[in-house]
């Protein structure tokens, strides 16, 4: 084995499998497997969740694991933190590991916040002495000075999460493994956590970070690994990997109009009015060709998102939807987008909005690239999803 310095991560050809059907009792399953393995050694009832994953991380580096749900990210973190073991391959993490796989699972509901600080701190690997020294800092970071002597079961979920994360924030390990733990908690606290993670990384701690929030991934990690369907698809600088991941995710979900309504979408297009490239600040026109079964009062919606989660802006228009094939032309006087890859969303609902199903459900319909200057990096942390107001002129014919 190569001797690595403290704080480095070495993963080489790691494989991991689980039992295929967890509802079958283990003992029964094992009896069966034994029987099968005698009859036919190749047909064992397993499911691979990691296949041949290799990467390295230097001390002080920061690496993000990205991928859709069930792609093996958490399993990989668990292997690295030795919560579970790989089926094949080598994984090495040198130095003290701080694994933040779940912020609330170490808390005991019947104990007070104070008792839980000591409990969870110990569980995460801090000595009692260290916790005593850091106690006031932890409570202050969590902003729980008033509630600390209350039983944790009377805390809100957000308070529990704040307490859990604050304890972990004072771990000072050589390697910090963070799994999607910031999904609850208000925006302020999330920002505080990301800042704290940034501080920890700057102090020389190695960071391995799992998140679905690509903006925070880009803000806090230099490198990224993309896992998809148990396989490591790509690794390298965060920007390039994230771009690749985005493109792939969009290709999947942008083979579009997965949700059918009574109105059919025949064609969707976005182009610059002057006929050139889609550039920042240029005038653009969105054209949609649709087919409706009947004439109706309707609201038309158009939105643009980066990635496929939430639109950056939405505009709408009320008018009469003609029966049969019709077109919508919407002119945006100003494209408020930096360089990047975007999705166009659309929907048509009845007007006034009743309890009826929408004529065309809200969904991304095409994706496109915009050219222009790079997005400005915010000075700290994150939140690329800034709502934007856009003026537009509509024509439905």
């Amino acid at each position, binding site marked *: 084995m190569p001797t690595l310095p403290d704080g480095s991560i070495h993963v*080489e050809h790691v494989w991991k499998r689980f*039992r295929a059907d967890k509802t079958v009792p*283990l003992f029964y399953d094992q009896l069966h497997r034994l029987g099968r393995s005698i009859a036919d050694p190749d047909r064992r009832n397993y499911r691979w969740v990691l296949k041949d994953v290799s990467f390295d991380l*230097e001390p002080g580096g920061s690496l993000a694991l990205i991928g859709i749900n069930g792609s093996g990210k958490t399993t990989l973190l668990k292997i690295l933190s030795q919560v579970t073991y790989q089926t094949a391959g080598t994984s090495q993490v040198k130095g003290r590991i701080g694994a933040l796989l779940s912020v609330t699972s170490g808390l005991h509901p019947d*104990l007070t916040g104070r*008792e839980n600080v000591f409990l969870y701190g110990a*569980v995460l690997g801090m000595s009692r002495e260290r916790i005593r020294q850091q106690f006031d800092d932890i409570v202050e970071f969590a902003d729980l000075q008033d509630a600390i002597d209350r039983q944790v079961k009377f805390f809100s979920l957000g308070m529990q999460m704040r307490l859990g994360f604050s304890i972990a924030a004072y771990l000072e390990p050589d390697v910090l493994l963070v799994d999607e733990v910031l999904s609850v908690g208000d925006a302020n606290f999330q920002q505080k956590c990301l800042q704290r993670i940034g501080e920890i990384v700057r102090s020389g701690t190695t960071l391995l970070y799992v998140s679905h929030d690509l903006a925070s991934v880009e803000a806090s990690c230099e*490198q990224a690994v993309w896992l998809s369907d148990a*396989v490591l698809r790509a690794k390298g600088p965060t920007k390039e990997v994230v771009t690749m991941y985005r493109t792939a995710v969009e290709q999947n979900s942008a083979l579009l109009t997965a949700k059918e309504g009574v109105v059919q979408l025949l064609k969707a297009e976005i182009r610059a009015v002057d006929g050139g490239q889609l550039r920042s600040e240029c005038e653009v026109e969105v054209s949609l060709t649709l087919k409706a079964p009947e004439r109706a009062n309707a609201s038309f919606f158009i939105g643009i998102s980066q990635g496929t989660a939430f639109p950056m802006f939405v505009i709408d228009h009320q008018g009469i939807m003609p029966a049969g094939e019709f077109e919508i032309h919407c002119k945006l006087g100003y494209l408020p987008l930096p360089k990047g890859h975007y999705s166009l969303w659309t929907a048509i609902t009845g007007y006034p909005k009743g309890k009826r199903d929408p004529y065309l459900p809200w969904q991304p319909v095409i994706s496109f690239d915009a050219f222009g200057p790079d997005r400005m990096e915010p000075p700290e942390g994150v939140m690329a999803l800034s709502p934007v107001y856009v003026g537009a002129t509509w024509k439905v014919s």
Partner: protein
Amino acid sequence: MTGPESPFESGSAGLQVTDLTAIPTDPPDDIWYHHKVRFVASIKLLWDHREIMYTLAERDFRAQYKQATLGVLWAVLSPVATLAILVVVFSRVRAFPTQGVPFALYAFVGILCWSYFASSLGTGGNSLLVNKALLAKTQFPRECFPLETMLVNALNTVLSFIPLALLFVIFGRAPRIATVWVPMFMLIEVVFAAGVTLAVSSLIIQMRDLVQVLPIIISLGIFVTPVIWPFTIIPTHYHLFGGTEVHGHWIGGFAVNLQVIYGFFNPLGPVIAGVRQTMLLGGNPSWAPLCAAVVGACAYLAFGYRVFKRFEVNFADIA
């Protein structure tokens, strides 16, 4: 395995895209992971994490009495209640000769020893299941969970010595000098209980049926163990064959000491007998069964720890 000089070659390069067709369907035979159990290393690791064990024990002990008006007082009150029942029930019953010792005292000593074992096994056996949220998210040695519950039970047992002292006062007796042996007997019991608890907890997480079976086994165990019957009814010379009877005694032939054999398989027998002999009667314990108990308890621990470590790999996946 890459050489020591270049472990980071791939990490610092630019974007690398995996060739999906190059990934085999199964890992090559030479890289399969084999869980190596090094006993010395894992015991050292356990020692390094002893603080976690204390903290978890503190958690359980505190949580046990949270929101109860009388709080930790219950730790003393509940054995006193058990005792009161015992005194009432057994003050009239005399099931077997107790060599002048009040039956309640005689029985309580047995129950004290038994209940430590029973509660350790009962809560320790389920400890991995109860703590599965922690088990699947944190990485300290897994032995901490069953051993931590044994610590809590030890504390509860120590508190039960308060009613025992009360009982001595009630009957106007004092523990004999030979009581100094009692900690040694307790140590044998702890070793035995640790072995069984480790093995059972690691099996229970794989076969949940045992959750139901365990209480049944424990409640049967009290009859197999000399709790309410004297250990001395087990013969020391059990004649298998040969020999002749002279004045009611067998001479010659092949005889075995059943107490020794029993002591090996159930170290609790000699332990309870020893505690009674020293604390209540002030005599020397019979050493042969005790030695068997020591060997037996160590064997249980070695076996239990081996089983636990063997199954440890799966805990987080099946919890």
